[in-house]
């Protein structure tokens, strides 16, 4: 009888350390502070500035092959540059396609500012003389909520409107299908609004992306929640959308690899008003904190109902929550909320100030992150057209030159990796006294990029 008992005890003794193969808080990690970087790790040696804890299979094996960490990641070997150049003398305008949710789409709250940012950049470029005296013209296409309906927009831009490039995107799906079309038709895409990290993980050399993606946001949030605050029991509350499903995945991955797997993942539909059922589940699970991945309006309602139910757990969220509708809906219930933010609008640098003033003057509204990144993306595109001329292949070559370089935009410092994705550190924002307070939260391996490679 004693032998099985001994065996069981031995099994438990072995199993406990094995299950404890998880993130260990170090005693010298101060609470509620930013995490210092490990300076011994070279910034570009690991894909996407991945923190140690987020590296897949790191405890088991080294991968047979790593993608996206080499210069040839987006190397192009096609013949787009062999196609005849456009002749400005024979053109009335230099057409640039724009696709974003403008109408009949709940995401038009991001799409319209994106349009305004792009329009402002083009207006300023035209004031400087356009391209060889010809004005730039934006060909506006709506990104439909029924995403399949947007699939042919890039085709129309090329064959019906002779666009030299496309700028836009909010929804990751629409961006993916445009990217697939662009692989065949070879039209440069400047993606200034998606947070889907897989958009730049295709090796299709026809896209540049400047908006901080959910991988960067997820890592930043995981660092803050698990390392700075040292929380252990976390739940995820998210919308039943692709945005939230893909978005929260990287946060979940890092949490799991740190041994902090969210104990619960609860979903709700976009447009829901009553979250009692979901909140009761979270309360019963006795979680220490809640990560919200969704839209500002629903998040505001959730915060309100949470506090009404007496739930005092801290709440964290993604960048779509860092907008004024959340503060308006949640009111005092938003106090203490911490979210990732794609933009710090309280910055004092002259570039941002000048953009904000011009934007306010033209559109009579405050610019949000989507407007700033669209403005920066359009300026990147205009600079590439000016450099390369009217040839889609060479325009994309010029955009590819931003690989591993830094761009100082109105949204802040943009650092492009080998996939032409922006890896700049993400801001965090906390609601205090009814306003967002911002701070830059460098991650363990975060970096601002190679200063020697700054391009304007």
């Amino acid at each position, binding site marked *: 009888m004693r032998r099985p008992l001994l065996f069981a005890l031995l099994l438990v003794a072995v199993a406990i350390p094995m299950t404890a193969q998880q993130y260990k808080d170090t005693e010298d990690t101060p609470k509620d502070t930013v995490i210092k970087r490990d300076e011994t790790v070279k910034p570009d040696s690991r894909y996407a500035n991945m923190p140690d804890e987020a590296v897949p299979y790191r405890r088991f094996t080294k991968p047979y092959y790593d993608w996206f960490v080499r210069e040839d990641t987006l190397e192009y070997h096609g*013949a787009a540059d062999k196609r005849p150049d456009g002749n400005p003398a024979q053109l009335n305008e230099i057409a640039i396609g724009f696709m974003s949710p403008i109408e009949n789409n709940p995401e038009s709250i991001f799409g319209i500012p994106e349009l305004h940012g792009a329009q402002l950049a083009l207006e300023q470029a035209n004031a400087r003389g356009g391209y060889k005296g010809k004005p730039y013209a934006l060909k506006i296409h709506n990104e439909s909520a029924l995403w399949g309906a947007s699939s042919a927009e890039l085709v129309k831009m090329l*064959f019906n409107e002779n666009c030299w490039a496309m700028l836009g995107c909010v929804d990751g799906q629409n961006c993916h299908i445009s990217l697939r079309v662009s692989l065949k038709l070879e039209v440069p895409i400047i993606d200034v609004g998606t947070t889907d990290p897989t958009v730049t993980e295709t090796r299709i050399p026809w896209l540049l992306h400047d908006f901080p993606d959910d991988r960067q946001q997820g890592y930043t949030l995981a660092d803050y929640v698990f390392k700075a605050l040292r929380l252990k029991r976390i739940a995820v509350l998210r919308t039943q959308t692709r945005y939230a499903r893909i978005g929260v995945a990287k946060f979940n991955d890092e949490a799991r690899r740190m041994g902090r797997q969210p104990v619960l993942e609860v979903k709700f539909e976009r447009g829901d008003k009553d979250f009692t059922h979901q909140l009761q589940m979270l309360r019963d699970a006795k979680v220490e904190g809640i990560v919200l991945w969704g839209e500002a309006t629903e998040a505001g309602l959730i915060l309100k109902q949470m506090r009404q139910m007496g739930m005092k757990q801290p709440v964290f969220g993604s960048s779509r929550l860092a907008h004024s509708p959340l503060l308006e809906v949640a009111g005092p219930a938003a106090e203490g909320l911490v979210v990732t933010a794609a933009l710090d609008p309280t910055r004092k640098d002259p570039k941002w100030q000048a953009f904000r003033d011009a934007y306010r003057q033209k559109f009579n509204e405050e610019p949000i992150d989507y407007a700033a990144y669209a403005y920066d993306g359009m300026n990147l595109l205009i600079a590439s057209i000016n450099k390369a001329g009217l040839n889609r292949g060479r325009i994309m070559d010029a955009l590819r030159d931003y690989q591993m370089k830094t761009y100082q935009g109105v949204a802040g410092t943009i650092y492009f990796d080998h996939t032409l994705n922006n890896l700049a550190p993400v801001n965090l924002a906390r609601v205090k006294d009814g306003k967002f307070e911002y701070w830059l939260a460098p991650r363990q391996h975060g970096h601002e990029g190679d200063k020697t490679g700054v391009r304007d």
Partner: protein
Amino acid sequence: MGTAPLTPTTSKTWGPLRLAVPPLPLGGEGRRILNPHAGSPTYHLPSTVYRFPHFCLLVFAFCILTCSISLAAPRPHLITRWENYTIANGMPDAKVFCVTVDGPRVWAGTENGLVLIQNGKVAKVYLPADGLAHRAVMGIAVDRSTDDLWIATFGGISHFSGGHFENFTNLTSGLLNDICYGIAVVDRSVWVATTAGVSRYNTLSGEWSSWSEKNAPFHEPWAYGIAPAGNKMYFAIWGGGLLEYDVQGNYWKPYTDPDEEMEIVLFKNQGLIHIIVSNVAWNPDTRMIWASTYFGLSGYDGRNWHNYLSKDSGLASDFINAPKSRRNEVWACTDKGLSMLDYTTNTWVTYRPGKQKGQGEIEITWPDGRKQKLTTDTALAHNYILNMDFQGEDIWVATALGLSHGIRDSEKEIQLYASFTNSQRIGNNPTGRFQKGN
């Protein structure tokens, strides 16, 4: 010693190349067994040989095997001549997305219309003005029972019959989406890979069926390619891996990247190499399915996966637009040339334009990793390859700068190999490079 004098057969017929293996120096009683999967001959020895000391025998056998593997791999057949169809000789656009052979007729889909090539020249160009659904033609399939054409375009699909086009779009039919990449005809069914999933049209009843993430295990619905495989269909899904559909059983089986990470290949033969699959091909001879990705090439034999990267094989590039396979050949349309794997011998041949204008380059990667370069007088129209098809022993290749017709010429092939052998004998390499493999 023990090295087989390897030369290709000089027979005019192009069957599988025979390996000329010398008789064993053991009384001529050796019995050679060619193992089609091992890539080199193995020997069964008669009992009489046991009169020799075992040690000597083992050493001798080892020498023979080593030599035969490293030096005596069968020489693959070569495409020795290229004829190109470009804007200069009648193509409506430089970019050719797809090509389909229909007996003596060759159909090419370009960025500006459908092209018929017959008797060595561009015979006819079909544009939207002629009734074609859209100018950008992504896929072409021939209905063998009627000789009709089915054409996938960026504006729906076209049915070309009796000189007339009938079009099907998202608004006018049950087609899931107008952005169509691949098309295949099996019996009375026309299968279409669209950007919103897979559609099937029954040509007899006119009924449409559709599959997407709503009713099938599509991780993402973005379909890119189709390969009929007997009573099964395979679909290349961008972001969704490879999907197998059993037509009679009406059930789906997904094959996805088992490491579930976009940024790594965890193990060499882990399963499907990546979740973004650009196209798919079925080999009826070996009954293997081949998937191309922008992250390498994957083959599945029903039991094991066989993955290839440019770092561990003779593959020209990991960025592959489409595969094609028959007999023991697997072709990969990459952005840096057209690669062919002889699956039986693990020998690779890559075709690409040479550095000198007009000349072509053939790079052979032998099973031991050695590389050998040969030069041809003609070249592929461009190194960026989008698609290909077989026409007997010839091939047709869709490139970014025209359509190429690759021709096998046995005499020329012997000359090419001989030129290399001669140059080696006098210590000179006419191709200028003979580098050690990776």
